[in-house]
């Protein structure tokens, strides 16, 4: 038998506190399209990073054509004929298409680029994927779909035989998706082994031959796609009843809570108005770029609003900066934990007390050392942060524990409204469930919880009411009882796409 073009052999990957992949084995054959599915955090991206040479597996190995290989870095993987095409494309917008195609191996003599040869080679490779683009066009002038084509052509210039796609259709129009599929099928015919990562069930069933399903870093199944139904795939991805982990218990709502009226600012197309009662969990659903994070930032004073008012319990609030919001009891757990949430080089204690110490310091200046210690320990215990001590640097913690520390930062304050932006992104299932419990507890204690999520089951599972955002405005607000995955998705899709499909 011919060895598989690509094999994962008992591959594991550990990060501090999290096992991202454990003992994953499967084969991808030349001339086939192999789907890789799993929920967020199931380990798909980790697997792709191992394939691309960005991570080394903690255990196990990769084999290409039956030969075990280890990659010291990404250029090693490239040289072995592997190309991974990510959602965010790795191209240089200021350079020409031709230069992008041959970045790192431009045809040259004595260090001087041979431009005619470059143009000819670029045309040849663009023709291979049926693109007719002038090689000297600046990449930045191309549409996203065209850029993706350039990325594929670039993989071909390096002689890639194993090509992995990470959610390639997430930002493409319908027509561009059709083009992409034609090209992927063409690559299959030419004997490439293709690994295709997507959340979209329709695409997987239309395009792929085999499927591998991951759940919580474990390998669940590898099968011929023809032998499976959609329901069977979903069941294997989820592996448990979804409702279980949300711990949703209906609770009575209090009086008037947060009222946002006609708020405008960067990222919003129309003034947004909504209100959430004290003790209510209010979900905000929408696709990426719908303006959800922007709306939260405007309420919190992290970005300057151009119009509109925010009030709590009937009292109008003047919020020009995050500090004002915090003083009014409105707090935000930002979406991008690394960039906007944690201070990575400081300890759990420092990260916990970052905001509340302004209140507890003697005369507002001198640190209250014993309060700092006690508060950091108490919050860590309360939220069950897994850390050897509060003096541990926060960057050594897993994503879930970092998120808990940020929650702890806000639980150290008197909170009226908590704004949670994708609070469970990149967090393992156990920690997710704990964070849902914390949300429910907060709501029960009368806090107004606003939660942004792009995961349908999550937003449906935790919220009392759900606002759907579409293209920078609130498209609709639904009650929990009226909301369903189909309804939310239909409301969230941009209007043009909705009409096309």
């Amino acid at each position, binding site marked *: 038998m011919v060895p598989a073009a690509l094999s994962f052999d008992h591959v594991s990957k*550990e*990060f*501090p*506190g999290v096992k991202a992949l454990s003992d994953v084995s499967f084969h991808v054959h030349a001339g086939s399209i192999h789907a890789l599915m799993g929920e967020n955090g199931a380990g798909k991206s980790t697997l792709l990073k191992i394939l691309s040479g960005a991570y080394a597996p903690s255990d196990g190995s990769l084999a290409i054509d039956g030969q075990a290989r280890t990659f010291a870095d990404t250029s090693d993987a490239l040289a072995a004929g592997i190309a991974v095409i990510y959602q965010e494309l790795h191209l240089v917008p200021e350079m020409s298409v031709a230069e992008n195609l041959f970045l790192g191996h431009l045809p040259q003599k004595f260090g001087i680029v041979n431009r005619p040869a470059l143009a000819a080679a670029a045309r040849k490779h663009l023709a291979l994927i049926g693109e007719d683009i002038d090689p000297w066009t600046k990449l930045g002038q191309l549409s996203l779909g065209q850029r993706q084509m350039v990325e594929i052509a670039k993989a071909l210039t390096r002689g890639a035989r194993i090509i992995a796609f990470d959610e390639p259709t997430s930002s493409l129009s319908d027509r561009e998706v059709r083009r992409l599929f034609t090209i992927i099928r063409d690559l299959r015919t030419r004997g490439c082994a293709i690994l295709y990562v997507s959340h979209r069930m329709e695409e997987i069933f239309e395009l792929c031959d085999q499927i591998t399903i991951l759940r919580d870093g474990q390998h669940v199944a590898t099968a011929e796609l023809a032998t499976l139904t959609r329901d069977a795939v979903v069941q294997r991805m989820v592996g448990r009843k979804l409702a279980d982990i949300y711990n949703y218990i209906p609770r009575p709502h209090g009086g008037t809570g947060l009222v946002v009226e006609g708020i405008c600012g960067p990222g919003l197309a129309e003034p947004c108005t909504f209100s959430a009662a004290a003790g209510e969990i209010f979900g905000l659903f929408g696709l990426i770029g719908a303006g959800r994070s922007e709306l939260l930032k405007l309420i*919190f004073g*992290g970005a300057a609003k151009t119009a509109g008012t925010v009030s709590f319990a009937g009292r109008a609030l003047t919020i020009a*900066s*995050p*500090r004002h*919001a*915090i*003083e009014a009891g409105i707090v*935000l757990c*930002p979406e991008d934990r690394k*960039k*906007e*949430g*944690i*201070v*990575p*080089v*400081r300890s759990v204690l*420092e990260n916990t*007390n*970052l*905001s509340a*110490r*302004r209140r507890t*310091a003697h005369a*507002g*200046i*001198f*640190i209250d*050392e014993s309060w700092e210690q006690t508060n950091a320990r108490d919050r860590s215990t309360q939220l069950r942060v*897994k*850390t*050897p001590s509060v003096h*541990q640097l926060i960057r*050594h*913690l897993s994503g879930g524990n970092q998120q808990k520390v940020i929650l702890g*930062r806000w639980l150290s304050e008197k909170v009226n409204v908590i704004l949670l932006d994708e609070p469970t992104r990149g967090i393992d299932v156990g920690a997710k469930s704990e964070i849902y419990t914390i949300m429910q507890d907060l709501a029960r204690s009368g806090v107004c919880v606003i939660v942004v999520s792009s995961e349908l089951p999550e937003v449906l599972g935790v919220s009392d009411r759900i606002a759907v955002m579409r293209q920078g405005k609130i498209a609709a607000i639904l009650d929990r009882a009226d909301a369903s995955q189909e309804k939310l998705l239909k409301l969230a899709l941009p209007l043009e796409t909705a009409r096309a499909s």
Partner: protein
Amino acid sequence: MSSARHSPRKPIAEFFDKAGMLVVLAILFMGCSVFVENFLSWRNMQGLALAVSMTGMVACTMLFCLAAGDFDLSIGSVVACAGVLAAVVMNKTESITLGVTAGLGIGALVGVTNGYVVAKLRINALITTLATMQIVRGFGFIISDGKAVGIGLEDFFTLGSSALFGIPTPVWITAVCFAVFGFILNRTVFGRDTLAVGGNSEASHLAGIAVDHVKIIIFTAQGVMAAFAGIVLASRITSGQPNTSQGFELEVISACVLGGVSLTGGVGSMAFVIAGVLIMGIVQNAMNLLNVATFYQYVARGLILLAAVLFDRWKRRRA
């Protein structure tokens, strides 16, 4: 990188990680005491302390600058300009107070400007302070007409040349600075905010820290401190010298980095700075005692700095 690795560790490794450069300092000091003749003499110790006092003073505020993720190249020029301006004003007005105030004032002005441009106008600190460095140096030359300005008020010289319990006043001042700024960094909200801003300014902003204010205050303090060092220097050398302290900024930053203060912000302590300043000073002092030619001293200092940074990186990778 598993979490287990951060729990109980070998005590020696832990001590070494924490103490870091202090251990190197102790070894260096003992080595010099044994092998370098006259190193341990009271006279030499006095000279050594005086030699590092200026770097030490300014390193205190540079620590804050670096901890907040910025740095300041204009301090060498501020030292010179403040000294010259103080000298000129004192000669004109016959008043020490006015002279010192003018010197500190120019430092504050440069500092506020740096801070405002970096924090509010969001220009990179490298570019901003590179510009003010040249502007202020030029200004110093302009007001002194390019020549040293001798100071006529003898009382002013006590600042630089007096001593208490046999230790020169500038050394006392530096010691006080170490204590005060060490306390501010560790025990005040401002100090902790500084480290947070350097560690992640966006996260700090979203946690309610007034990032811009923190930066402006730090640059202002840096300017005033450099001006003060310039005035002490003028008092020691009894004149304002417009071309003094060229490259001083690099000496100060080197000392901080040598001690283990991170150039990317968020990591630093006064112990690091003291260690860095003293290591630099001792090496220089020992080389002088051993009659190493100046040209070779440059090479040696550069090599030491490079070695220290590589050592720090190695230590951090292991952690």
